[in-house]
């Protein structure tokens, strides 16, 4: 159990009126900092965010945000949260400055402070020159940054970001990830819901992985990647024979091509390295390279037991 968690759920379930079970007895503690909420489309990520905001009521279980029970005090919880939805949600006929200031006022800031804060956060997301232009003329990247600006305008303790890089080109994605990565430095914790695991690897310290509404994994991002790391071995040829030999010794191996194989390193890395070296020697194969290869986040997700 995490001390003073950002978000805590206990047996949280939600079944929509249509009968779809979006969350199934989810119990998880999300610590403060930047946390990735990872799952495929339909895994229950957005549902969890809406439950955290009190916009949905759980069928069973409880959810707490910043130490407050959402069911008991949804208004109090929302006063501490910023939210960036996945979908387009900005009025095209208004300027970015107006929209962000308006939403700042609705978060309880006095009008003058809201306008000043809007100016500051739009400057922060690099929209200082565009802030008096109607949003209808904005690119997707500019809209996403406006959405982020409105989420942080009231200086929340936590921001819930739903697919923040969705629809962005590579440059826009880099800009957005850079901004999300800076949030922790501002004292704002972020729960980043995404199916793009590379994004999580880039900006999140920890990962909560859900699938079909159930918790699949939670832990530090680096530990997760390291734990499931692999060793890429390159020999001159006949990699299949070396794979057979290692397989017989109980090591999981994937043949990539005639001269390359990936060796799974689950526990004792030193022992595996010795087995590869001795196996290549026994078979008379020239060992060209052994490089530590971390499994990509996408492979990691697909490998999770279901």
């Amino acid at each position: 159990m995490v001390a003073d968690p950002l978000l805590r759920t206990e047996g949280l379930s939600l079944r929509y009126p249509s009968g779809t079970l979006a969350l199934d007895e989810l119990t998880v503690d999300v610590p403060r900092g930047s946390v990735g909420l990872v799952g495929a489309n339909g895994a229950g990520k957005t549902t969890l965010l809406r439950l955290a905001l009190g916009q949905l009521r759980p069928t069973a279980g409880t959810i707490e945000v910043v130490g407050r029970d959402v069911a008991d005090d949804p208004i109090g919880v929302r006063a501490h949260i910023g939210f960036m939805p996945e979908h387009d949600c900005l009025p095209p006929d208004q300027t970015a400055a107006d929209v962000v200031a308006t939403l700042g006022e609705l978060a309880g800031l006095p009008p003058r402070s809201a306008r000043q804060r809007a100016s500051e956060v739009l400057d922060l997301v690099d929209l200082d020159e565009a802030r008096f232009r109607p949003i209808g003329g904005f690119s997707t990247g500019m809209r996403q940054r406006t959405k982020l600006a409105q989420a942080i305008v009231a200086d929340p303790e936590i921001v819930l970001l739903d697919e923040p890089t969705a629809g962005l080109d590579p440059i826009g994605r880099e800009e957005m990830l850079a901004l999300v990565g800076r949030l922790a430095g501002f004292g704002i914790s972020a729960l980043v819901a995404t199916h793009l695991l590379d994004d999580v690897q880039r900006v999140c310290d920890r990962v909560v992985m859900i699938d079909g509404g159930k918790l699949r994994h939670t832990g530090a991002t680096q530990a997760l990647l390291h734990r499931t790391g692999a060793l890429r071995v390159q020999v001159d040829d006949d990699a299949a024979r070396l794979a057979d030999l290692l397989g017989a010794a109980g090591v999981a191996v994937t043949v990539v091509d005639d001269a390359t194989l990936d060796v799974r390193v689950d526990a004792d890395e030193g022992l595996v390295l010795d087995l590869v070296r001795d196996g290549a020697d026994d078979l008379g194969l020239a060992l060209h390279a052994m490089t530590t290869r971390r499994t990509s986040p996408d492979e990691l997700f697909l490998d999770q037991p279901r």
Partner: protein
Amino acid sequence: MSAPLLPPAGAVYDRGYRPYEGERGGRGAARAALVRLSIRRALGLRRSWRQKVLPWSLLAIATIPAVVNVGVKYITRNTPASDFDLITFREYVGVSTTLLLFVAITAPDMVCPDRRNRVLPLIFARPLTGNDYVLAKVGALTAILFGFSFLPQVVLFVGQMLVVREGAIDFVTENAEVLWQVPVAVALFSLYWATLALAISATTARRVVGGVALLATVLVSGAVASILVSAGGADPERIFEDGSLWGLLSLVDIPLRMSDLVFLGHVDPGSLVGGAEGAGTGVVLVYVAVVAGSLGYLVYRYRRVE
């Protein structure tokens, strides 16, 4: 001799992110902000001149009868004709029906874009509930309609007070009842149209559809009521008591009959319900049903964020 050191002409600072440490209101502040922002939008404040034309033109048009009446009183102040009123305070509440066009444009503009542009999830991520949203929108539109209906009455009252032959004090003494009748009648009128117009507008995300639906509902109900009253043997064009309770179906007539009750203590005999048994009670019941029904529908419509 060395040149004196000059202070640098300018410097660039990266202010970065600054936490907000100022005043922070709660739900009450958020509600007040939503009312304020809705009024601002409806009146075209901080918007282009095009958005200002309609509301302020209509206010000017609604004030014309008062100005004309005061002008005529001034010109004829020393003749017996000065006792003649072009329009009475009670009738002037009815003239406010010219604001129906304004309501048909403003009410949809207050709620439809929030749904169409999917801004509601952002609004309800703030410390606001669906009921807060409904109360704020109804409050804002009621306040605007009250202002636009009351100001011309003030012009009429103050103008006449200044120009009448018998003097200001005598005029006020003779018309003391008007000082409570006008605000009450105008408030009832404003609340009625605000709730009904917003309820009809909330059925759709398209402003045009909302406005047309409101006008169609009002005009069709009036036409149907007239036909039914005529079919019952009455002649609604005749100014004597032969109306029927079918006249209660006319949505446009109900707030005018409420004004009758405030000013006269009974419904106007020349109206669609004039002379009908229990007409006054019927008017009150229909008024309450329309306002309560509209509010109930609005609360239902915004009970959950879509």
